[in-house]
């Protein structure tokens, strides 16, 4: 059951002092949606916390409530039980320290790459020359230099997702939340972007919470992985990934990596098959 896990995030390189003061606290979150077929519990008493500099992944089958949790942590969704704390403050609505990268394509098609990335700086009231300068730095960070003046319609899906990433990074959030940012991409691009995220995370010491249903991605990037159950979304297990850092996509071939993948896959398979059975039963039910 989703009992309280001992929250001792092992942030390999960081000092033990930092670990005592979590940046993000998710405390006993419960959320249900009212639907035509009655209430659906999307998130069922989930608790965990994220230490500064830590990379935590949440993995679970489709429909288990990951995006719901993401929206709650971002302050975009309310009407839930429990509470979220960001840097010690209880969350009420979107928080300046929380940056979000969404599952769907989210660039502004009417802005060039650099203007997309400069968007949060523009909102913050930064002068034009300065914000374009800053934006260019983040465009470079995600490897899109040379594309500054292009519009999103002239870019590939992976490039657009990197624009969204740069835009969120430009606001310099203390915590970066990502909801399956690579879900729509092919495996190779996914691995390379994973490398990019790793590199950025290691350079910026960016506290990150990644939501995914991709196991390789989760193990490659994370310090800890939270495995969730199929509906209702509960916590099944918290797995600590003790692979050495700095990492790169090459680690995917190692034995230790395979060991983690196998272990988590065991948990996931159970949940995923529950999901499948549920869907089949549902389809059978509507046919009658």
């Amino acid at each position, binding site marked *: 059951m989703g009992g309280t896990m001992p929250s001792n995030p092992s942030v390999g390189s960081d000092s033990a002092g930092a670990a005592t003061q979590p940046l993000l606290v998710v405390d006993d979150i419960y959320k249900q949606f009212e639907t035509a077929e009655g209430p659906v519990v999307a998130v069922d008493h989930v608790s965990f916390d994220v230490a500064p500099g830590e990379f935590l992944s949440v993995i679970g089958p489709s429909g288990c409530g990951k995006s719901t949790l993401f929206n709650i942590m971002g302050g975009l969704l309310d009407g839930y039980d429990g509470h979220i704390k960001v840097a010690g403050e209880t969350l009420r609505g979107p928080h300046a320290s929380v940056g979000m990268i*969404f*599952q769907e394509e989210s660039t502004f098609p009417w802005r060039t790459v650099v203007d997309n990335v400069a968007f949060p700086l523009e909102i913050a009231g930064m002068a034009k020359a300065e914000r374009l300068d800053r934006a260019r730095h983040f465009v470079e960070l995600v490897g899109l230099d040379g594309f500054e003046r292009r519009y999103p319609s002239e870019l590939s899906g992976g490039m657009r997702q990197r624009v969204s990433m740069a835009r969120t990074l430009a606001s310099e959030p203390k915590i970066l939340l990502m909801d399956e940012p690579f879900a729509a991409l092919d495996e190779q691009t996914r691995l390379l972007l994973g490398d990019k995220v790793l590199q950025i995370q290691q350079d910026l010491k960016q506290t990150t919470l990644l939501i995914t249903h991709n196991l390789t991605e989760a193990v490659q990037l994370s310090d800890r992985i939270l495995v969730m159950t199929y509906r209702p979304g509960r916590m099944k297990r918290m797995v600590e990934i003790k692979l050495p850092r700095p990492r790169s996509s090459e680690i995917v071939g190692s034995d230790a990596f395979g060991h983690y993948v196998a272990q988590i896959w065991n948990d996931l398979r159970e949940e995923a098959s529950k999901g499948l059975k549920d869907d089949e039963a549902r389809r059978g039910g509507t046919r009658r």
Partner: protein
Amino acid sequence: MAAQSHGGNRFIWQQAVPVLFGIACLFAVVVLLEILIRFGFINRFIVPTPLDIVGSFGRIIVDEHVGSRFLLTFGEALGATALLTVFGISFGVLLHRVRLIRLATETWIAAVASAPLVLMYPLFLVIFGRSALTIIMMGFVSALPPVILKTLEGLSSTRPVLINVGRSFKLTPSQLYWKILFPAALPTIFVGVRLGMIFALINIVGVEFLINFGGLGQLVNELSERYDLPGTYAAICFVILVSVVFFIVTERIEKWLRPGA
């Protein structure tokens, strides 16, 4: 460099071909019409030949002052379009923001859109007198519904994830409108403005014709009363010119306001 200029050439080609093709088609239709009329398939006392129409251009420019009439109708259309843009978009925004007003009026507005409001011209004559103002107001009122409805449609079909991006960056409600909803809705709003402009022009020329006052509509009226058919059709060509100019201008404005296709 060389590759780039080659790409530039191809780009110009791609733009030029459709234009040339359009002109060629128009020319072909004109030639066909000329032939059909000359060989008596179409009665030349009802439809004048294209050559006769072209021949009458000089006459209506010099004798009928079509230039100043063109400017008058163009000005009225411009006035109506300006009003449409301001009030149509504002109403659209209001409908989007206030659910009650939207639910209460949306169906009515859609119904009004298809009603022949020109028939209300006597009422407008009473209110505004026999003046250009009547004509502008007539054009404005009858073209308002499509602008309102398209504005509403554009705003409400903004992708939710873009709004969420804005909220996550803590935009104020007015920033959310100006920085996200509005640019996202702009292409749809422009469809509405262009549609409204067509409605307005039809009504403007129609009312000019009906009350025998003002620009090109009155000219068409007079020339047809005199049974000067080539002149009538030549005047209609100028009405089309008004609409062409408006289309080109709105397209330019849209590209400028909302780049990135």
